[in-house]
């Protein structure tokens, strides 16, 4: 379909080839990837690490700060709080003022009948539930309650949900992507499971700092898009560093026989990125915000299709 050079010049009008549109059935806003069975290992099998000494005095409280958003977890279960401290060891900041206060109660199968994740806002209150946890959260009072099984991945899921909601209002989102910092700039590598996020992270040279090999934390701060480290790990099972950097570029990962970098236009980049944004809530306002955030990002940052051989030579293209 070609547009005519001028609406008044009928001789130059183009043939009509129909009114076309493409429908991409619901952009997944991936949630199934967080099923407990897909996660790499059980926290409870991990060896205990040396706890942060400063936290020993606060046995019943853990302040987890990811992306500059502190969430205070408190409760009576010492086992849970010990688990949380270990799980988020690089992301604890007991001196922060909490953005959200979350009372945590450990229960067995809090939602036995709710297999699929459901996140809704009703009467101004957020609720998220799945078989292994239930989260109720009042943004007005910045407080809530989390009931869950003693499982780090249930906690991971609940925190990710809260962050997606908080981030949406801040022109940010979580992306199914690995991200790293090199030369003080952040580079993001996005794609579905199996696309090579962990591989890219694993073969990174020593001057590269890992932010995450699985879930990237993206937010626009002032005039820049920033990437933050997260403790959310993929197959690498290694927490990211708790640092941030301006995003320099994003890459859609595609395995290929040779390394090649292909610039994407904004339209293709938006289509590709939207399919990798993590969002769980059935909320029109926030869906709109995330859509606009992704469109803004692809207009401001370079996005490439990165065809790559899964070895360290890929890093020759990332500068």
């Amino acid at each position, binding site marked *: *379909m*070609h*547009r*005519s050079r001028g*609406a*008044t010049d009928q001789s130059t*009008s*183009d*043939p*009509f*080839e*129909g*009114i*076309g*549109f*493409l*429908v*991409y*059935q*619901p*952009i997944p*806003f991936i949630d199934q990837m967080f099923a407990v069975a897909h996660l790499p290992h059980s926290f409870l099998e991990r060896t205990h690490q040396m706890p942060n000494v400063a936290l020993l005095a606060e046995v019943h409280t853990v302040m987890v700060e990811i992306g500059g958003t502190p969430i205070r977890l408190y409760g009576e279960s010492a086992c849970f709080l010990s688990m949380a401290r270990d799980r988020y060891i690089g992301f604890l900041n007991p001196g922060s003022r909490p953005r959200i206060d979350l009372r945590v109660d450990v229960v067995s199968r809090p939602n036995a009948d709710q297999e699929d994740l459901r996140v809704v806002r009703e009467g101004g209150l957020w609720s998220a539930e799945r078989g292994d946890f239930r989260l109720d959260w009042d943004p007005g009072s910045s407080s809530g309650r989390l009931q869950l099984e003693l499982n780090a991945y249930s906690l991971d899921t609940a925190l990710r949900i809260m962050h997606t909601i908080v981030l949406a209002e801040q022109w940010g989102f979580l992306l199914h992507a690995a991200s790293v910092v090199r030369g003080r700039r952040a580079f993001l590598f996005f794609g579905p499971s199996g696309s090579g996020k962990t591989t890219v992270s694993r073969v990174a040279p020593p001057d590269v700092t890992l932010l995450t090999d699985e879930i990237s934390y993206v937010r626009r701060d002032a005039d820049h898009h920033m990437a933050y480290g997260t403790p959310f790990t993929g197959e690498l099972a290694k927490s990211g560093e708790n640092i941030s950097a301006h995003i320099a570029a994003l890459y859609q990962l595609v395995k290929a026989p040779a390394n090649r970098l292909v610039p994407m*236009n*904004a*339209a293709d980049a*938006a*289509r590709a990125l*939207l399919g990798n944004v993590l*969002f769980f809530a059935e909320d*029109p*306002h926030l*869906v*709109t915000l995330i*859509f*606009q955030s992704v*469109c803004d990002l*692809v*207009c401001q940052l370079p996005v490439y299709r990165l065809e790559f051989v899964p070895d360290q030579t890929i890093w020759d293209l990332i500068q």
Partner: protein
Amino acid sequence: MKGCYVAKSPLAASRELDGEVFIMSSVNSTLFTLNDVASLIWKSADGATSLQEIVENKICAEFEVEPSTAFADAEYLVAELVGHGVLLVADHPIEPPSLFARKKS
């Protein structure tokens, strides 16, 4: 449907990227991309211009097409987008939601 009016739903977000119109349904996260002709209808869907006017004054003015063919295609597009909740249709002009809200208050 000739005399009907069409307007963008407040439950749809749209952006033009590289000349391509993207529409996101905020209800179910369905993404639509439109070709040139469909984009013209979308951009013209202001609630005040009838579908017939859009077809005659915009589409037929810019593309080589018989009005009857263009109108049949336009009807199909409108029905699809209305079905997904991103377009509103009525047999009278549609006030923008924001103006409507202001009047009520």
